[in-house]
């Protein structure tokens, strides 16, 4: 069931949108098809072709709904004309884009440049990747109602201004690349540091994001940010086995067994990043990959070139001024020079209120206070981080740290 959802969700929703032009209807009918599968598959068995089964159910639901709502005969005809076969649900104008990968082509189609960047990225994550509004809100560090409003606004513009769901021709792909990169980046992040639920890492999301970033790099060999993003993912992914212990608990970079890092992935990441940097256009993904490389190249935390990391974050802050980048820079400063310097920057950030609801701000602050031996202050910050953390594994980690500084919940 999980496999069918992963493989088929985006394709089914996209096919319905392509036929009806109604995003809400398409999403709801896809949901109903999966609910139907949950009811019937356990007793009837999984059909030979789950995708075709789900597509047919979703399509029939859409036709029923359109009929009930007495919508235009033209829409009905379009929806009904598709037949039940998955093959015939394919977009007809596939060839113009030159994108071989089905999933990547759908993402480019969804990332329409007439929508605001955040709106199109959020909508793509919701519509094609099936992430929840809550997960997307966390990725953008905004409250869930804010994200829900953004999604409604984006869908409102699609309907109001009649934005078509159409595969773009090859020459119009570059204006969509920024959105596509952001979609893949956030997809990987959600997989690598799940924002909620029992698992720390959702391995399938990571694998899928890497696969898509690879396809994007192949499609756009002259876009260094595509290679940069792939390198960034590979650097992080190379540490996945060392990142949690046998109980599934988080192990920080400092305590990771570096022999468990995936050397083959690190080598590939370096090669990709070097090739990207030769273009001489260092964008945010290449810079983040370069930062990840500093960590990966060090024998241990003490050996890490924190000064280099701090200056890379400074460059990154110029390209993308964001409080999260400022937070990371503060941590690097603390590790490179004096803990107090870094703590001062974090305190300023906290005072600005921009990251008030961000658990990692409080976790980072707590960590510096712990290193400074200010256990009572650290305990307060750990408690605050615990209130805000989304995944169980992160909460267990923070609870352990809290106990170390002598605090209790």
């Amino acid at each position, binding site marked *: 069931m999980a496999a069918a959802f992963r493989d088929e969700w985006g394709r089914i929703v996209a096919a319905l949108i392509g036929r009806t032009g109604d995003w809400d209807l398409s999403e709801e009918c896809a949901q109903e098809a999966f609910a139907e599968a949950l009811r019937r598959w356990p007793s009837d068995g999984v059909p030979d072709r789950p995708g075709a089964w789900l597509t047919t159910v979703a399509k029939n639901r859409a036709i029923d709904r359109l009929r009930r709502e007495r919508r235009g005969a033209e829409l009905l005809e379009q929806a009904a004309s598709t037949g039940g076969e998955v093959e015939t649900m394919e977009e007809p104008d596939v060839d113009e884009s030159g994108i071989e990968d089905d999933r990547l082509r759908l993402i480019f189609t969804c990332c329409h440049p*007439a929508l605001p960047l955040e709106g199109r990225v959020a909508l793509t994550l919701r519509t094609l990747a099936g992430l929840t509004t809550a997960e997307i809100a966390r990725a953008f560090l905004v409250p869930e109602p804010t994200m829900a409003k953004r999604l409604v606004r984006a869908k409102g513009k699609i309907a*109001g201004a*009649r*934005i078509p769901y159409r595969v773009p021709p090859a020459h119009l792909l570059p204006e969509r690349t920024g959105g596509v990169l952001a979609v893949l980046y956030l997809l990987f992040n959600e997989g690598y540091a799940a924002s909620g639920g029992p698992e720390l890492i959702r391995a399938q999301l990571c694998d899928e994001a890497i696969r898509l970033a690879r396809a994007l790099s192949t499609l756009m060999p002259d876009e260094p940010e595509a290679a940069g993003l792939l390198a960034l993912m590979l650097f992080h992914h190379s540490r996945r086995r060392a990142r949690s212990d046998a109980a599934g608990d988080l192990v920080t970079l400092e305590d990771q067994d570096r022999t468990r890092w995936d050397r083959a992935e690190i080598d590939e990441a370096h090669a990709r990043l070097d090739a990207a940097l030769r273009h001489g256009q260092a964008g945010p993904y290449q810079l983040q990959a370069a930062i990840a490389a500093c960590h990966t190249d060090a024998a241990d935390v003490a050996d890490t070139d924190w000064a280099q990391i701090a200056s890379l974050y400074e460059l990154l802050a110029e390209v993308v001024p964001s409080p999260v980048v400022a937070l990371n820079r503060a941590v690097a400063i603390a590790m490179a020079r004096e803990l107090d310097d870094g703590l001062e920057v974090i305190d300023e950030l906290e005072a600005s209120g921009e990251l008030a609801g961000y658990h990692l701000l409080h976790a980072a602050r707590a960590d510096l206070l712990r290193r400074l031996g200010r256990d009572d202050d650290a305990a307060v910050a750990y408690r605050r981080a615990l209130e805000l953390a989304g995944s169980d594994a992160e909460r267990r980690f923070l609870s352990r740290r809290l106990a170390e500084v002598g605090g209790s919940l």
Partner: protein
Amino acid sequence: MKYLMFVCVDEALVTPESTKDMPRDTSAWVEEMDGRGVRLQGNRLQELSTATTVRVRGGEVVLADGPFAETKELIAGFDIIDCADLDEAIEVAGKHPVARIGSIEVRPFWED
């Protein structure tokens, strides 16, 4: 779907060189869009100094000399276009020569 194109000029981009081919290019654009059946109507507007803004406040008609909003870009003309979807409207607007020295706002009609 019908869209209104507000054709705006950015005065900072107006030079003898940048506007030299405007009349010819605009005529060519009109000819192409009329030929395609996309452009329903449109016109160039007179100078900003000819504008009058009308408001009713407390039941009284209040007039002001000039446009309703002072902006860097001024509305120099408009076109009503009938397109299959926003992609076509963007393609049509993107071909308008004034887009090179200003911007074109494309807004769908309330009732199509």
